């Protein structure tokens, strides 16, 4: 008998059907991954097992844990199971812990809640568990508070709480999505070890096929609330039956057709020994201010037609550098010149019009009360003689057409568009003023793989039609690899490697780059797989 058996699970919220006949099984010691794009219902499937569902949810079907029906079980019964027989790890480690309680109390709480152990025994167990997840008591005392830990460390605490009582089933909902690649690799390794040591079943939810292929014994692919395909990982990748699975895989492995960069040596953007310092909070009122150096003497040049990638983990200073290049914050040393002129917060508007940016969040970066036409014509403020009347209208239509939207979309409000369409609008806003350089700041990081593939294609296409030169900032190595000619690897405010993209990825010269590339999960080679008989 399987450890977890979900049969014909239907779920609706306030009458809207979300899940439709979801069935899956998970055996003891097995790792099953549910994958799919946003809105596929993969997280709700996981939360159904926990019975932690939003208000107004109606479920039918069956979810059995070791033969015990949990679907619509009364809450007191579920409280006994949660934490004891089923542990759960969440996506966002930064907010998953109570900020006011120390980590010891939070781990001990699981133990004290379900057992009759004394506080001392529980404390001992908490120390053991924290050590097991890689937080040894010598360096991480129980009295630490969550804000004193990094994201990866917090995720370890969350895992410790989930496994403190060795549950039979562990559910991990996008456990590494919010983490850097090297941290992700460590956490995935830890989860794998725990499954082996404890003989738990692991139900993992992730959108990342590369992570799935490294981790899972079996895969469940979901789309719009239905399971479209399920099977043993290797077999499934080798022999993808459903067109959606194939499309998902193709989108994940998508490589754009980037036209060859034109040979030109006009330097558009010259960054020379740039230094950015942040003041630390004063320790006493009259003490001299101390500074953190976020960007430490960075130099590079972006030539006309060049597509440069900038990669690095969180905290490496890439966002700080971006803000300095956009002239939003002043430098404390060195210089940044765009088109021969100094970039600074008080630079002339005309200079700003040459530098445009596309941000990460397609939901937060537009004013919801403005129509698309107004949103994308915003950069016209930078011009002395902004186009008026018919010309303005034509420019709007051209920009919308260029990004694959319809001219009529100009009169709609932003809420009418999906995440991918919004990112197209963001690109239209950057393009409309015909800038010399565009900065893509994690511009595809919030998008689903299929949408991401489309946007990357669009960027590649625009480089051809609009002679784009850009700086593409991302934490995602696979994206940078396909969309840039040259890549800069940043660490602790410095550039540790600078070279042609293919060269850097196939033969990195700096150990940090090599680490990053090794830590990044990779998609399986489907051709190699299909040659092996399943």
């Amino acid at each position, binding site marked *: 008998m399987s450890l977890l058996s979900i049969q014909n699970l239907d779920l609706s919220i306030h009458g809207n059907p979300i899940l439709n006949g979801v069935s899956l099984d998970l055996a003891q010691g097995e790792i099953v991954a549910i994958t799919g794009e946003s809105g596929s219902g993969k997280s709700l499937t996981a939360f159904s097992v926990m019975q932690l569902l939003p208000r107004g949810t109606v479920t039918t079907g069956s979810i059995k844990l070791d033969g015990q029906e949990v679907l619509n079980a009364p809450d007191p019964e579920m409280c006994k*199971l949660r934490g004891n027989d089923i*542990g759960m790890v969440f996506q966002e480690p930064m*907010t998953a812990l109570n900020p006011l309680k*120390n980590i010891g109390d939070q781990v001990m709480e699981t133990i004290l809640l*379900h057992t009759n152990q004394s506080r001392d025994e529980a404390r001992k167990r908490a120390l053991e568990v924290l050590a097991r997840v890689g937080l040894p008591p010598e360096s991480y005392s129980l009295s630490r508070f969550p804000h004193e830990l990094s994201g990866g460390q917090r995720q370890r605490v*969350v895992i410790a709480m989930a496994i403190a009582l060795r549950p039979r089933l562990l559910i991990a909902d996008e456990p590494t999505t919010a983490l850097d690649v090297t941290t992700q690799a460590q956490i995935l390794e830890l989860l794998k070890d725990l499954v082996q040591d404890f003989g738990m079943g692991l139900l993992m939810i992730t959108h990342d096929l590369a992570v799935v292929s490294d981790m899972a014994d079996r895969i469940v692919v979901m789309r719009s609330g239905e399971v479209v395909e399920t099977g043993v990982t290797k077999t499934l990748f080798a022999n993808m039956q459903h067109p959606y699975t194939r499309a998902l895989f193709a989108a994940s492995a998508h490589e754009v057709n980037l036209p060859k960069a034109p040979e030109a040596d006009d330097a558009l953007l010259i960054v020379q020994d740039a230094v950015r310092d942040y003041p630390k909070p004063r320790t006493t009122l009259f003490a001299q201010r101390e500074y953190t150096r976020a960007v430490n003497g960075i130099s590079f040049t972006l030539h006309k037609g060049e597509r440069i990638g900038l990669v690095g983990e969180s905290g490496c200073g890439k966002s700080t550098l971006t803000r300095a290049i956009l002239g939003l914050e002043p430098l404390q040393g060195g210089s940044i010149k765009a088109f021969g002129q100094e970039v600074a917060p008080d630079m002339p508007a005309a200079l700003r019009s040459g530098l445009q940016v596309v941000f990460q969040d397609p939901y937060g970066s537009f004013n919801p009360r403005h129509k698309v036409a107004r949103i994308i014509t915003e950069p016209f403020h930078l011009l002395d003689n902004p186009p008026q009347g018919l010309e303005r209208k034509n420019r709007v239509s051209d920009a919308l057409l260029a990004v694959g939207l319809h001219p009529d979309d100009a009169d709609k409000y932003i809420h009418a568009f999906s995440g991918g369409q919004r990112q197209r609008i963001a690109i239209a806003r950057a393009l409309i003023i015909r800038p010399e350089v565009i900065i893509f700041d994690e511009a595809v990081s919030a998008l689903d793989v299929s949408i991401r593939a489309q946007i990357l294609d669009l960027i590649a296409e625009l480089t051809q039609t609009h002679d784009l030169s850009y700086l593409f900032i991302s934490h995602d190595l696979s994206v940078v690899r396909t969309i840039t000619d040259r890549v800069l690897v940043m660490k602790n405010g410095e550039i540790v490697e600078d070279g042609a993209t293919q060269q850097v990825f196939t033969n990195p010269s700096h150990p940090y780059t090599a680490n990053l590339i090794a830590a990044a999960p990779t998609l399986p080679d489907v051709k190699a797989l299909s040659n092996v008989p399943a």
Partner: protein
Amino acid sequence: MLRYSLKRLLSLAISLIIASLVIFLVIEVAPGDPASFMLGMNAQEDTLNALREELGLNQSKLERYLSWTFGMLQGDFGTSYTYRTPVAQMVADRLWVSLPLALYALALSTLIAFPAGIYAASRRGAPGDVAVMGATQLGVAIPNFWFAMILVLVFAINLRWFSAGGFPGWDEGLFTGLKALTLPAIALALPQAAILARVMRSSLLDILNEDFIRTARAKGLSRRQALWRHALRNALIPVLTIIGLQFSFLLAGSIIIEQVFYLPGLGRLVFQSISQRDLIVVESVVMLLVFAVIMVNFIVDLAYAFVDPRLRSRS
């Protein structure tokens, strides 16, 4: 934590100095000469001068500011222009009514608001929540003087449980004193309790939507346990802010209630002093209120740090 407290203390001192300067200057530019007010329209110029000399009004502004502030530090608030009695004594008498009244009202309002807010939040959308929210809506809308009059009608005139007004003094015993303050405290507390309950509820509901509440539930805590163990303390920060603001208001803002119940409190003292141009009393009482407000804020700041470890370690 010590460093945090010292920093707060330093900013408290700076605020007090700035406040005293502002109060002094504002009262300085206010028109009207206390001496001529005291002696009446037909006073002789030399009598006026003599009185000004006696009151210290002929000194330079700086001298007067310094003697005022240093006097206050030693407990000497000067002499009332109108009554010719030490201001310190007048204020102290009134404070013995106003301070207990404010604390009484605050205690009542907290005792009502916390359970009501927690109850409503834990039953969001259910009839209990709707009833509590309806009641608080009413509490916010009803003016407290009107409510005070209703209380007098019902409990003093009809039921004769309490007297309709006046304050016998603490010499008559603690119980008698508290009894006299009960109706005014209720009248003051209810509208405050209504506001506080709403803040408590919405703050709790915000926190109950946080990820770490979901984590707590995933550990096996029931909804109620998650609320008490994880949500409540997190929800306290905005509630503490409101409590601090309310205390300041209760101390000085109860003038109408004091009038309705005929209580000799600070509010009435300020009102009388302003109408009699007894500027030295106004100055002193305002300074005292500023001091109280700043002290309350200081205590609220310390309470924040007590609740939130992030504030403790930041400094």
